[in-house]
């Protein structure tokens, strides 16, 4: 499964709907301090099921919903959608006939949260199962947050097993 598209709406500083397509090869994301680069990393971790508000630099999960700016009021919902291409049919059996698979997560100010796979509602568990054994996930070895490069060195020996088990 390759990432094709990311759509962010109302998540952190992305008040308006913003879409990214991911061409093959290397994509550099640049911009001044505080412009929203790391918020994109948080959006990807979040849609893949991240449950810890602190891992997303917030105090409560509600902190991921656009909280307003000088000229705008806070919004009531955060939504992130990540679309993968499934050409080689790596997805689990029930999704194998789809050429594209999209996962979506929503959070409302009320605290209600919703998950979707290909636009049909599902549970978080379904999303975690979808990505089992694909190397995709909010804790995957291939996602390294800002200032987090040394986590493998600073962690305890038992915590490091986790990455080896992922590839085993």
């Amino acid at each position, binding site marked *: 499964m*390759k*990432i094709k598209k990311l759509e962010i709406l109302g998540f*952190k*500083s*992305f*008040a*308006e709907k*913003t*879409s*990214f397509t*991911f*061409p*093959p*090869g*290397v*994509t*550099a*994301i*640049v*911009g*001044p301090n505080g*412009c*929203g*680069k*790391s*918020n*994109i*990393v948080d959006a990807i971790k979040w849609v893949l099921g991240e449950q810890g508000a602190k891992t997303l630099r917030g105090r409560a999960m509600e902190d991921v919903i656009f909280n*307003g*700016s000088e*000229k*705008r009021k806070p919004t009531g919902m955060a939504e992130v959608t990540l679309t*993968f291409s499934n050409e080689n049919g790596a997805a689990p059996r029930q999704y194998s006939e789809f050429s594209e698979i999209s996962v979506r997560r929503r959070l409302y100010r009320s605290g209600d949260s919703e998950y979707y796979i290909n636009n049909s509602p599902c549970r978080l568990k379904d999303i975690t199962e979808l990505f089992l054994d694909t*190397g*995709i996930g909010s804790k*995957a*070895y*291939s*996602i*390294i*947050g*800002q*200032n*987090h*490069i*040394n*986590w*493998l*060195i600073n962690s*305890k*020996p*038992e915590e*490091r*097993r986790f*990455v*080896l*088990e*992922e*590839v*085993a």
Partner: protein
Amino acid sequence: SRVRFLKAFEEVNDKFQEIYTKFFDGGKAGLKMLEEDNPLDTGIDIVAQPKGKRLQSITLLSGGEKALTVLSLIFSLFLVKPSPFFLLDEADAPLDDANTLRFVKLVKVLSEKSQFLLMTHNKNTMELADTLYGITMQEPGVSSLLSVNLNEV
């Protein structure tokens, strides 16, 4: 599952040594099981020895040496079990110019099998990229995507 773990351990260990010596032009790196007779529960130690230096605890390594050690390990995991994409947020920040170039060269090679998304402020890294996305807050407090054509940089 014990057999699978041992096989993955061996493969990652080999690749880790290979990639590490590529980064540091020499030196040694490896993984160690703290309890060899108990592969299903053992903790894992990381051993790294830059070229020309004595073997010491990895905590004594410098900021840049630690970053390169972790990147070597992550890339060796990838070679054993590829992940469809890498998302690295300013992983090049602690690197000097020479190591940044080594890092981007390796990323370029690996990007044939996987997509790389790199957040960076480093000009050397930007020059390597196939695509450049600019994020801006033209409206204060609101992020938006500035589609940047590489030729304009």
